[in-house]
C-alpha cells in the first residue's frame, strides 16, 4: 500500500546513511527483509519532524495506532487505558519526531520504545505503584544515553556538595552537633547521646528536627 513512496524512501535513507557516521551499529544493520516498508516509516517520521507533515503523520497513525492499541489491551486488558495509550504514544511520536534521526535505529523500534515507556507509566498509575520512577528515568530518553551522560558528568556534583554543606551550616548548633555525630562520625544514637552528654530522647528529637529542616531546605531550593 505504500509502494508509491518507498522508492523515495530508500533514496532518502541512502543519502542520510552516507552522511551519518556509522558508529552506531543499529542504524547500519537495518533488517533487510522488510526494508522497503521500514524505509517508509523512517521517511514519514522524518517528514513529521522536519516540517510537521500532516499527511505523513496520518500515515504513521494508521500504520501504528492499532498495534499500539493491541499492546495496550495485552498489558492492561482495559479498553479505556489502551485508548489512552494510543493517544499518549502517538502524541509523543508527534512531539518528539524532530528528535528522531537514523542513529536512533529504525522508526518502528523508536515508536515501540516510546509506546513501551508510556505503557509502563500507565500501568504504574493503574496499579497505584509509588510514582518514584517514571519510564523516562528508567529507559534512556527515547533512545539516547550517551549525550545525557555528558550533561550529567559536567557539573551537578560540586553544586550538590556545596548546597548540602550550606544547608548543614544553617542548622542550629545543637542540631548540627547531632547530625555530625550520626552522619559524619557514623555513631549509633546511643553512642552519640553519650558523646554529647544528652539524654537519648533529646538526641532523637533533635535529629528529627534537623533532618526535617534539611529536607525542607533541600525541597525549597531544588
Amino acid at each position, binding site marked *: 500500500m505504500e509502494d508509491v513512496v518507498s522508492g523515495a524512501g530508500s533514496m532518502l535513507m541512502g543519502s542520510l546513511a552516507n552522511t551519518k557516521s556509522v558508529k552506531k551499529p543499529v542504524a547500519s544493520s537495518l533488517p533487510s527483509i522488510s526494508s522497503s516498508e521500514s524505509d517508509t516509516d523512517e521517511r514519514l517520521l522524518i517528514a513529521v519532524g522536519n516540517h510537521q507533515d500532516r499527511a505523513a503523520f496520518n500515515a504513521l497513525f494508521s500504520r501504528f495506532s492499532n498495534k499500539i492499541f493491541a499492546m495496550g489491551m495485552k498489558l492492561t486488558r482495559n479498553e479505556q487505558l489502551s485508548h489512552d495509550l494510543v493517544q499518549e504514544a502517538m502524541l509523543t511520536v508527534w512531539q518528539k519526531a524532530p528528535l528522531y534521526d537514523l542513529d536512533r535505529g529504525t522508526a518502528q523500534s523508536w515508536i515501540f520504545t516510546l509506546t513501551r515507556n508510556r505503557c509502563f507509566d500507565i500501568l504504574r498509575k493503574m496499579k497505584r505503584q509509588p510514582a518514584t*520512577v517514571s519510564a523516562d528515568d528508567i*529507559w534512556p530518553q527515547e533512545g539516547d544515553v550517551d549525550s*545525557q551522560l555528558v550533561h550529567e558528568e559536567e557539573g551537578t*556534583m560540586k553544586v550538590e556538595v556545596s548546597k548540602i554543606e550550606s544547608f548543614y551550616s544553617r542548622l542550629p548548633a545543637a542540631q548540627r552537633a547531632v547530625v555530625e555525630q550520626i552522619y559524619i562520625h*557514623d555513631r549509633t544514637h546511643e553512642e552519640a547521646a553519650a558523646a554529647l552528654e544528652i539524654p537519648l530522647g533529646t538526641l532523637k528529637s533533635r535529629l528529627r528536627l534537623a533532618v526535617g529542616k534539611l529536607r525542607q531546605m*533541600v525541597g525549597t531550593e*531544588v
Partner: protein
Amino acid sequence: MNIDARYHPTPEQLEGFAQGSLTPGMNVVISAHVEMCATCRKSISELEESASEEWLRSTPDTRASSINYSAMIESIVDHPQIKNDSAASDNVSEIHMLDHSVTLPRALAKVASDGLVWNRLAGGINQAMVTLDDQTQCEFLYMKPGSQVPVHKHQGSEVTLVLDGSFEDDLGHYKPGDFVVRTAKDLHQPASEEGCLCFAVLDSPLTFTKGLARLLNPFIRYRFRRATSAAAAL
C-alpha cells in the same frame, strides 16, 4: 560512566527490560547497570529492534472501534513539537559516603531523590530501603570497610549492583558496574574489605495477583521483610 563490568544481567533479564515486561524494581537496577555498561547498551538497542519487529509481526491489525481517529489526530497535531532534547534532570545525582561522594546512575538518582533513611544492621552494614513496587524489595546497602554479612539464603532471587567500592563472596570479587545475580539455591556470605555501596533488588517469594487472595499480600510482604532483615541482623 562507561565501565568494563564483568558480571551482567542474564539474557532473559535484558530481553524483559527491552520489552518492558519486568517489575519497576528490576527495571531500575538493570537501567542503572545498562547506563554504566556499553556492552549491555548495545544489546538493549538490538533487543528493542527485534521486540519491535515481533510486535508488528504478531499483532493483528484489527481496528479499535472505540477510537475516533480523525478527532484524535486533530487533537495531537495542535501540540507544539519538541525541538531539542532538554532531558537533563535536576535530581540529586549522588550519595555522600563518609569520606567521598558517589555519582549515581540516573534511575537510582531519581530513586534516591526523595531522601534515604539509613538503618544500621549488624556486621557493619547499613541499609536504606526504597519502595518501587509491591513485588520486589529494593535497597541501597552500604558495607563499611571490613564488614561481613552473615551467611544467608534468599527465598527469591537477589540482584546486587555494585556502585562504588567492591565486595567479594565465594564466587568472585565484584567491582562497580558488576551485576550479581543469586538465586534461592545459592548460599552466600558477602564481605567487603574496602567498603562497598550497592543497590539490591529481591524478588518477593510469593505474591497473589488475583482476587481476594491479594488481601494477604501486605502480610506476606511484612513477614518477608522481617525475615530478610532478621537474617542480615543475626
